[in-house]
């Protein structure tokens, strides 16, 4: 069965690829005004229908947090069917997610603090004029809805495009955003390339069932996720939004401090599991491949497995991309990982720190966004059990060296580079600090209409 593209919101299964986006946090002070806003927004939201070769100037999408669903006046009988993690909110899951010390909810940015985020309207632009058009559309919808809804905060983001480089980068300087799950739906997106599904047999890959990401379709176990939500869940997804501040100067200093004779770039590649241009360390341990990154859509950058490297002698067991998507690296083929995949739609914010520049203390990082059918089974397993803890990978207390801070244990946080002569790197520091966000529900367009009309009250 193919996903109903006309009802699914855009940028879920298939990314827009726009260079600009802004995350607008909208506050609902009165339920009827909130529903009026949804009614105004509904015809202006962007669905997942293919654009072909002519993209529109902008796109607008809507996600709703638990506090937003309550503010819209959903009855308790409906609210109680939402999953526990959405009802609890992301701040309540901080211990599991490793959001501790400076990243703990008590330190979050005021506008994104626990329980604050209600509605998130994602404005995407083909260019600056397109983004401004999306902003004007939201402003107009807010005006029509009246004074009891308001724009509270905006988080603007922009892709970092390196001159002459085929792939966009994140702030630490690594190519990013080109590794997404392959979906078992011919209309879902352009990601069905070798290495992006689940390992099958010796060389093949199986695309992932749409139900792993969109409610109302069979998942990898043949179950229909979101059935308890009824029509409200049809073509919906659950979305994680996290503002992650990146300490670029600190990361560069760490590389310089801990590099051996192989140099800081070699160390950076071990920590990430990819060279800066995206070449996977597992497939090319000694140096970036000269041509892979330049191929259309980096089609060979994901065609690799870890099953032949169980001891991490090619790619360290604790490298970031190996932890985040272990492929067949946990044994049993891909059986242990196929139900823990996410679609990432993050965008960098803040201006890049130029190479060689001293620390300017500027706020920069990633607005991390991911979509899945179950936040608890997908994002929280990856973040909580694979990145913020090492037990599942046989790494004890070793956490992800890039995105997770060290655990509060007596032992110094370290990163192990396995090999005939293993190398230990540490003590680790926190280079990525959570600044706030929320777990969100991204409904299908018919469900938005129902919420707007108060039909969910029936």
């Amino acid at each position, binding site marked *: 069965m193919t996903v109903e593209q006309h009802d699914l919101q855009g940028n879920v299964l298939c990314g827009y690829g726009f260079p600009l986006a802004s995350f607008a946090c909208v506050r609902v002070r009165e339920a009827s005004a909130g529903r009026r806003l949804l009614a105004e927004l509904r015809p202006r939201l962007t669905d997942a229908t293919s654009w072909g070769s002519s993209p529109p100037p902008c796109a607008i999408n809507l996600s709703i947090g638990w506090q937003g669903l309550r503010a819209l006046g959903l009855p308790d009988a409906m609210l109680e069917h939402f999953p526990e993690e959405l009802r609890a909110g992301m701040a309540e899951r901080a211990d599991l997610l490793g959001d501790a010390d400076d990243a703990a909810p008590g330190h979050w940015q005021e506008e994104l603090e626990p329980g604050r985020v209600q509605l998130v309207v994602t404005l995407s632009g083909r260019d600056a004029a397109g983004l401004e058009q999306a902003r004007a559309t939201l402003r107009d919808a807010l005006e029509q809805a009246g004074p009891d809804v308001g724009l509270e905060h905006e988080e603007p983001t922009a892709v970092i495009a390196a001159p002459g480089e085929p792939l966009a980068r994140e702030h630490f300087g690594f190519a990013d955003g080109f590794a997404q799950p392959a979906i078992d739906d011919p209309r879902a997106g352009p990601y069905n390339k070798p290495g992006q599904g689940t390992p099958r047999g010796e060389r093949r890959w199986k695309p992932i069932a749409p139900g792993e990401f969109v409610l109302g379709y069979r998942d990898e176990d043949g179950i229909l996720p979101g059935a308890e939500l009824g029509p409200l869940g049809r073509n919906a997804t659950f979305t994680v939004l996290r503002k992650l501040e990146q300490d670029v100067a600190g990361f560069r200093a760490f590389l310089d401090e801990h590099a051996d004779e192989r140099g800081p770039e070699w160390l950076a590649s071990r920590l990430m599991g990819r060279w800066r241009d995206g070449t996977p360390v597992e497939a090319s341990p000694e140096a970036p491949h000269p041509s892979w990154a330049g191929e259309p859509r980096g089609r060979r950058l994901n065609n690799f497995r870890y099953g032949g490297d169980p001891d991490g002698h090619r790619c360290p067991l604790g490298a970031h991309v190996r932890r985040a998507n272990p492929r067949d690296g946990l044994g049993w083929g891909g059986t242990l990982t196929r139900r823990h995949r996410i679609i990432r739609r993050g965008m960098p914010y803040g201006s890049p720190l130029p190479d060689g520049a001293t620390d300017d203390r500027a706020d920069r990082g990633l607005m991390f966004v991911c979509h899945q059918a179950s936040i608890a089974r997908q994002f929280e397993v990856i973040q909580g059990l694979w990145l913020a803890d090492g037990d599942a990978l046989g790494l004890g207390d070793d956490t992800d060296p890039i995105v997770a801070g060290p655990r509060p244990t007596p032992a110094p946080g370290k990163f192990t580079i396995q090999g005939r002569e293993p190398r*230990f790197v540490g003590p680790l520091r926190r280079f990525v600090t959570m600044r706030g966000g929320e777990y969100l529900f991204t409904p299908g367009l018919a469900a938005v209409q129902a919420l707007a009309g108060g039909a969910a009250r029936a």
Partner: protein
Amino acid sequence: MARELCVLTPILPDHREALAAGLAGLPEGEASPLARVPGTHFARWVLAPSLRPPMDPGRETAYLVFAVEFDHRNATAYLEDLCRRLPEEAGRVWRHCAGYPGAVDHLFVSWLLAHRVDPGFSIVAFPSATVAEIREALALRARLAAFALAAQRFPAERLRQAWREHVGAE
């Protein structure tokens, strides 16, 4: 060698919410009252909202499930230890169950054992090691990691000397 115990006690009518609130208010992890019983690998109280009692399968009843893996020589020894170390908390939890004897004492232990069920299958992370041995192994790993981080770039003679000192301190 870790042993296991699973106890199912029926919850009194109208007590389910009070019990759920009481359980939700208990601290978890190292701060849990159950952590005060040395030799506890893993212990949990779980509220099962509707099970069918074997004696009366037509009737659904809410049960409190208590499942634990421990190092004690048998279940009686474990429960007697539990009574000594968390009498107040145990009473506050199990008083919501039908047949609670009224005090956390030897009758209470007998009452729990009478409600014991065979779990059939249980998973213990380290079945052949005691909790004390596991904790010591973790501490040893932490000390070794600290040594490896500090000493990995030492020249051979200095590394040998540092290792001797480290082992000597162990």
